[in-house]
Structures are given as structure tokens and as C-alpha cells.
């Protein structure tokens, strides 16, 4: 990875939930690094563990969830070793979060001004009056018209887009170092989504935040992120800079995902969908988790889980095709595209 300062370094994170039917590993081996001032996108389909990853970072898991393993290094300190009191100081202050549903994540019985003030009074030792003034400034910052009036509104008096702006204002109240945005625009219409994405980008430039952007929308990722981690069945399966990921995806799953996306900007003949369904978390495949759906899967893929390997550019991939041990064809056809395998047919043997 480049010389950029790494503000958040997640290493081999594993999170499990106890359920009636047994333990479920929702996150099982997630690693990524967030360079300061950059945006990393975490993409995946439902059940891939992307939201649980973000909740694990802030340790906001439900009572039946536990972090089994891993490190979350924020400025070199492991958040998983912090006390609850230390975490409280951090949340909403240095690391803050925006959620998908602005309707359910705001408190309906307090005005938006009161809700923004809460963080300011708690973390910045402001008086009520100072906090009220700052709340109006923040609402103005996120582009809410007549903020001095809106500050006295209750959430139900605002539209969906406005509520999401309020959420963003709340999360920015203490000038956080890291903003975690969990599907912040999924519940919004496209014209409103465009407004919110523009706002987040603009604020990031002005305030120098680092952003973790969690979404299932590949279009949003392409437009907002610098780096992308693709998740599948609880694992990071491909990590690359945004250009490489969209232009030269390597992983069969990523290629399949991109090729099954209907696009409005180009004409496509027939979509090339990924066959089958996401595996049940109760019954994960022993080998590669994508093997049952993968058009290139071999016996090796079905038998043994590949590791997340890093290449010379710092991009990462969890796939046997690009390893020395590959036992399939040297040219692999994936959803109409060809990829050259590393093992067979090539002589390159890289030192360990």
C-alpha cells in the first residue's frame, strides 16, 4: 500500500451471533485499511456481513453478538481492547455513523435541534445555548433551507431527504475523523440520492474526513469511493482501488456481479446472472464460499478455503485461480470474460 497514513486498520475481524439454531459467523475474516482522507466502499449483497462489519468497528452489536477475533486499529490503538467508557467517548465524536433509515434512527419525540445538541454537549462540553447555535450552523452546512426554523422541527415534519441531512449534521457535529455511512441513500429517490452523495463528498473535502461507505449499489461505489472491498458470505473476497475493481475485476464473483447489473447508460443484450443463491450462514461451504455458484470452481475450490492474498499493487483477492496451486485450465472463462490463471501454464514462481 502507498505511503498514505492509515487511519483505520481492520485485521481478520470475526463476529458471531448466537441464534436458536446455533452460532452464526456473520463476519468471518474481514481485513481492510482506510487511508486518511479517503473513502473506502464495502459492497456486497444482503447477508454478506457488510453492516455487521461496521457495527463491529464501533462495537454496537446486539447482545447476542460477539467479536471473536481480530483487531480494529484506530490510529494504532485496538478499539476491541477499549473499555465501554472509552468507546462512548469515541462514538459520535471521533468515529460517527449514518444509518440507512433516517426515519427510524432519529428520535421522534425530540426536535432535531435537541438531537444534534446532545452530541455537542456530551463530547464538546458546550452549554445548551452554544450547542443550539452550533446546531443551526450544522443544519446550514448540510444544506437545509431556513435552518433557524428547521432546528425546532420534529423528524416527522421533515421529508426523507431532509431527515438524512439531519442525520449527517448529527454525525458531523464533533468533526469526526471517520464517518461510517451505512447505506445512507438506499431509502431515497435518485434525485435526492444525488443531492446527498454530493453533500457527503463536498463535506469530506472541506473537513478532511475519512469515509467508510457501505452499500449494495455498485454505481454509488464507482462514483464515491477510492478503494473498494467486495464482501461475500462474511468475508472480504476482493479489495482494490476503484478503477482496477471496475475495469479489471479478477474475482469470479465480482465479474458476475458487474455483469448481472442492468445499466441505464449502455445497451446490453442479455444479462449474465450468477446462478444459485447465497449460502446459508448455518451451512457454509467448506472450501471457497462462492464455489457452489462459481462457473470455474474445481475440486480444490470445493475442498479448501482460499486465503486473501495481496499482489504487488496492494490489491487483494481471495481466489484459487490466481494462486500457484490452481488445478484448472490456464484460461478461465467467467461470465463471458477471460482471465489468465496464475498456476498452470505460467512459469512464474514468486518467492514466499
Amino acid at each position, binding site marked *: 500500500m502507498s505511503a498514505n497514513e492509515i487511519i483505520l486498520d481492520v485485521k481478520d475481524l470475526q463476529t458471531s451471533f448466537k441464534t436458536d439454531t446455533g452460532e452464526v459467523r456473520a463476519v468471518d475474516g474481514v481485513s481492510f485499511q482506510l487511508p486518511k482522507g479517503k473513502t473506502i466502499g464495502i459492497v456486497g449483497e444482503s447477508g454478506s456481513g457488510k453492516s455487521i462489519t461496521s457495527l463491529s468497528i464501533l462495537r454496537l452489536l446486539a447482545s447476542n453478538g460477539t467479536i471473536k477475533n481480530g483487531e480494529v486499529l484506530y490510529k494504532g490503538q485496538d478499539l476491541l481492547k477499549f473499555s465501554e467508557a472509552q468507546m462512548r467517548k469515541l462514538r459520535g465524536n471521533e468515529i460517527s455513523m449514518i444509518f440507512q433509515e433516517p426515519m427510524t434512527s432519529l428520535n421522534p419525540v425530540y426536535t432535531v435541534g435537541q438531537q444534534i445538541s446532545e452530541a455537542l454537549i456530551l463530547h464538546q462540553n458546550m452549554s445548551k445555548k452554544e450547542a443550539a447555535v452550533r446546531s443551526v450552523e450544522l443544519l446550514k452546512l448540510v444544506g437545509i433551507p431556513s435552518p433557524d426554523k428547521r432546528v425546532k422541527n420534529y423528524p416527522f415534519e421533515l421529508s426523507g431527504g431532509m431527515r438524512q441531512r439531519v442525520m449527517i449534521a448529527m454525525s458531523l457535529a464533533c468533526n469526526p475523523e471517520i464517518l461510517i455511512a451505512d447505506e445512507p441513500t438506499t431509502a431515497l429517490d435518485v434525485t435526492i*440520492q444525488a443531492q446527498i452523495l454530493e453533500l457527503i463528498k463536498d463535506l469530506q473535502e472541506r473537513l478532511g474526513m475519512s469515509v467508510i461507505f457501505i452499500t449494495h449499489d455498485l454505481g454509488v461505489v464507482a462514483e464515491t469511493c477510492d478503494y473498494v472491498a467486495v464482501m461475500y458470505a462474511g468475508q472480504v473476497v476482493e479489495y482494490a482501488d476503484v478503477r482496477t475493481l471496475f475495469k479489471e475485476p479478477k474475482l469470479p464473483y465480482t465479474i458476475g456481479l458487474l455483469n448481472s447489473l442492468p445499466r441505464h447508460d449502455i445497451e446490453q443484450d442479455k444479462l449474465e446472472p450468477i446462478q444459485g443463491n447465497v449460502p446459508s450462514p448455518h451451512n457454509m461451504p467448506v472450501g471457497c464460499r462462492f464455489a457452489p455458484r462459481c462457473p470455474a470452481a474445481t475440486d480444490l475450490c470445493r475442498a479448501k478455503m482460499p486465503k486473501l492474498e495481496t499482489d504487488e499493487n496492494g490489491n487483494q483477492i481471495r481466489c484459487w485461480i490466481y494462486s500457484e496451486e490452481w488445478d484448472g485450465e490456464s484460461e478461465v472463462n467467467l461470465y463471458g470474460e477471460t482471465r489468465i490463471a496464475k498456476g498452470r501454464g505460467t512459469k512464474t514462481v514468486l518467492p514466499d
Partner: protein
Amino acid sequence: MAKQELLKVEGLKQYFPIKGGLLGRTTNHVKAVDDISFTIYEGETVSIVGESGCGKSTTGRAILRLEEPTEGVVEFKGVNLAGLSKREMRKYRKDMQIIFQDPYASINPRQTVASVLNEAMEIQKVLPANKRRARIEELLETVGLLPYQADRFPHEFSGGQRQRIGIARALSVNPELIICDEAVSALDVSIQAQVLNLLEDLQQEYNLTYLFISHDLGVVRHISDRIIVMYLGKIMEIADKESLFENPKHPYTKALLSAIPVPDPDKKKERIVLKGDVPSPINPPTGCRFHTRCPFATEKCVTDVPELRTTAGMKENHQAACHYIEEIASGEMQPNY
């Protein structure tokens, strides 16, 4: 190719009353759909797109009389559906089916798949009882499920599979028109592509006509022949797929298209970011409904309702409801952001 009209909608209005006051009198109306007209021809796929509250789903429901339309004519093969009694209407429901958005909410959780499909065939008298079981198994295979799954309950299926059951139910009565109301919106991308491909294959096989209601312009571009863009209960633009995506004329259509993120980091495009929110359909703006957010709006737009029209440089059957199509195209009018 002689195109056969299958469905003709004329002057359709759907107003929902708002009750209020001490006596519970109707105080106002939500004008969900306000005077729209369009035609669907046999074997084609027409899509209605728009943001939430534009009236696209209401249109679909009004066509099937799931909600009685306030005004207007809906002709199916030349018969005005609005004039039929409930009993007569039931016969036509066989020819017009709907697939809903939520695959979890639209199937009775206490019925097995077989009984869901059987019920539809029984009510519409499609097949005698002794032949239905074979047909059910055949239907399941058609939509990509396995015959032995017929005796399972909905909770045993994933979201994508449940949507396939919804499609099988619609197909069970041999319909001609299927209204797909956000039928793939709740599905993950990889599953969505499977279902879209299935819908396309079925259309070819059974010569189906689709009215596809969606907010996702990517999906719409993929599946449609013609597209209707709605905003606040009105049609803004109506065109064949190519014209709409390559040569959009209405400022709203342009803004909508530019707002969608493209999964290609090299495409830096000019984005038109619309100001403000969609106004309330209770008191929609006068004149052109889009004038409150339109970067080209003038005083005329505030007072005069624009009609759908075709100008030079537009294909036949491509219509847009804007006073200034020519001026915007020639560059005479510049946007005012």
C-alpha cells in the same frame, strides 16, 4: 408489423379523498394520478418510471381495478373495464395478472406453493381438478423451481425463489398482460438478473405483454420497448427506449438520467442536481408540475399546463410535456441553477 392494441388508458384519474374535520367530511384529495393516457400493444413491454409518489403503482392498480379509478377509460381488447360489473371483471382478471414488489408479503404464508397455484386455477376454472397437479409441477419447472418443491411453504424459499412463485401464480391462469409492480426491486443484483432473464424468456415463449413499473432506470432500459416517465401523477415524457435514453427531451427526464450513479469510475458526467423535494400531491404545483424544481422554468410554466407533444428532432411516438422543448434543444434557453 401490424401492432394490435391490447390495453388503452384514456384520461385516467385516481384521486384519494382526505377525510378531516369534526364530521369526517372529505376536505381534500391526493391527486395520485391526474389525467394520463397511453396505449400498450400486444407482445411489448412498456415501463412506467418515476420517483416515489409519482403515481406509477397507482396506475397499475387502477388498470386492474384493485382500486376503482376516479375517472377515465381503461380498454382491454376494446372492452371498457371501468364499465364492467365485479362479476364480469373477474373474467378479465384471468387475462391480466400482477406481480408485486414484496415476495414476502404477497404470498399467504400458511398455504403450500401447490395450493397457492391451485387456488388461482380453481377460481379462474383454467383446468379440471385432476389435471392441475401436473400443471403445477410444469409451472414450477417453467419458473426455474423443482417439482418436488410444490408442497413446501413460502418460508422455505429465499426471496428470489418466492418471486418466482409469484411469477408462477401469475402464469397459472394463462394471462396475456402481466403488470410487474417493482417486481425485482427487493432482490439482490445477482438474483434480480436471474428473474429479469426469466421474465424475458417467458415473454418470448408465451407472447406475454408486460407493464413494468419500476424506479430503477437500469432495469427499465434492459427490459422495455417503450417507457413512460411520470412525475406527480402526470406523464412527463413517453418514448421508445432508444429515444428516451439517447435523446431525452424533458428537463425532468434529463435530470433523472443524470442522477443515477454509473458503475464506471472513468465516466465523469455532468450531473444535474435538482433542488428541493418532490412537492405534495395534495396541492400539486399549478401549470407544469415540475416547475418548482425545473432549471428552465418561466412564468408560463407556473400558469399553463404543458401538453404532451412531438417536435422536430423527435421520433414519431416520442412525446414530452414541456413548453420549451425547441428552445432548450437549440440552446436558446439556458438552465438556471
